[in-house]
């Protein structure tokens, strides 16, 4: 049985206990799929930590440079929110459908809005509109995303 993503992330951060860590390590030695998942987690974590810092301003830069730096910082901040929303949606999809359902939806370069639309569509059909809406609201909580689900899903 494959370890859950949360367990793999905890393993990646050395936050699992010795027993569980040992079990995951043993599983990883045999399972190519989980090795690949772990590689992707590590790669993304490195990417995130590399891009986490705010852009540095050189002394003597003019107003345009400052404004573009602010814009870049904003973009980075929104990008963080998008990544957060995407991972929340994927977590919900995993809980209600499963990992293969996420893989089926996933496309290269898929944006958070698209994830929101697809997730909302599936949850509305299989879980019912009210419960689907509740999941969507939960995913959007605390994020700068005010668009209603119907608008994004169509």
């Amino acid at each position, binding site marked *: 049985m494959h370890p859950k993503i949360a367990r793999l992330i905890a393993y990646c951060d050395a936050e699992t206990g010795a027993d569980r860590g040992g079990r995951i390590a043993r599983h990883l030695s045999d399972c190519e799929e989980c090795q690949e998942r772990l590689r992707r987690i590590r790669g993304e974590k490195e990417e995130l930590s590399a891009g986490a810092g705010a852009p540095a301003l050189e002394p003597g830069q003019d107003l345009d440079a400052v404004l573009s730096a602010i814009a870049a910082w904003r973009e980075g901040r929104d990008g963080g929110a998008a990544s957060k929303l995407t991972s929340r949606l994927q977590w919900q999809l995993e809980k*209600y459908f499963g990992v293969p359902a*996420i893989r089926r939806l996933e496309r290269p370069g898929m944006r958070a809005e698209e994830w929101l639309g697809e997730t909302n569509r599936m949850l509305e059909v299989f879980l019912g509109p009210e419960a689907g809406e509740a999941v969507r609201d939960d995913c959007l909580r605390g994020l700068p995303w005010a668009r209603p689900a119907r608008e994004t899903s169509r």
Partner: protein
Amino acid sequence: MTRKAYIDWMESAPRWIVVFLGMYLSVHLLSLYLWHSTGLPFSIPGTSGTSFGIFGAGLAGAGLWLCVVVLRSFPAGAPLRPVWILLALAAAVQIAPGALGALLGTVSLLNGVAWTGYASPDWMERMQRFASLAGGPLRLALLAAAMLALLRVLRKFGYLAKPCAADRAVFGIFCLFTLCRFCEAGAASLAGRPIGSGEWISLAGLPILCVLYLEAMLLRRAVARMGNGLIARGWMALVYAVLLTGAGEAVVWAIPHYPQSLPLAMFGALIEISAAAAYALVPAYLVAAQRHAMNPAASRPEDLATGVPALAR
């Protein structure tokens, strides 16, 4: 009961069903084991046919109630609404064998009509026949229609796939069993042996059960492509329920061909009870998923949401 306690109870409905079924199966398997070791029929209270009927009807009642709860959450026009209407109807007619057959179709203390003296043997036989018809072909037809509607929705989402060799083999074996049953009935008819109404009803349900097996195999493949989430588990329970229904049918057929029919009859009844529990699990998982969605407190770990890389899944 407070609203929170009600939601908690509903959320753990699948667990309750599994626990009750486990307890029931444990008691009956223990009595079966004692029968096997002592060689004498070991009778414990509640192992009679009436208890099977009442427990089965209870499970069907729970399934019906959960189906209605789910149905209310799907408004008119929702793609899965017809599926839940048909599943609720199937659950309603599933109560018939237990309620009509075990309560009204037998002379027991629970049969209120028997007290009045109106329940003649003929009347009780008619009740039994009606119960068998409702719980057999009619229910299977409703289930087949529900699964067809469900498969259509799954196809829209791209989950439908061709059945694999194992699925085809299971379906083929059941088709062969159906063919054998019809051949046997035909041979008996040619030999001049009368075929009872119960056997006719059972035979009428077999072709529908074949269709259900095919649908169950397609559903199994679709759910395997979906995963192991709460919704997927509910639909997988429907697959198991259909498989158990077929297995129960095979055991019922085998009973007269087996010299020691008591353990086989009990085993058959346990399969039917397991199938009833599996049918009840279908809406139970969806109710649990809906309650989980409506009450998301502490369901989503914040650190996970912030830390999970997008591609990691």
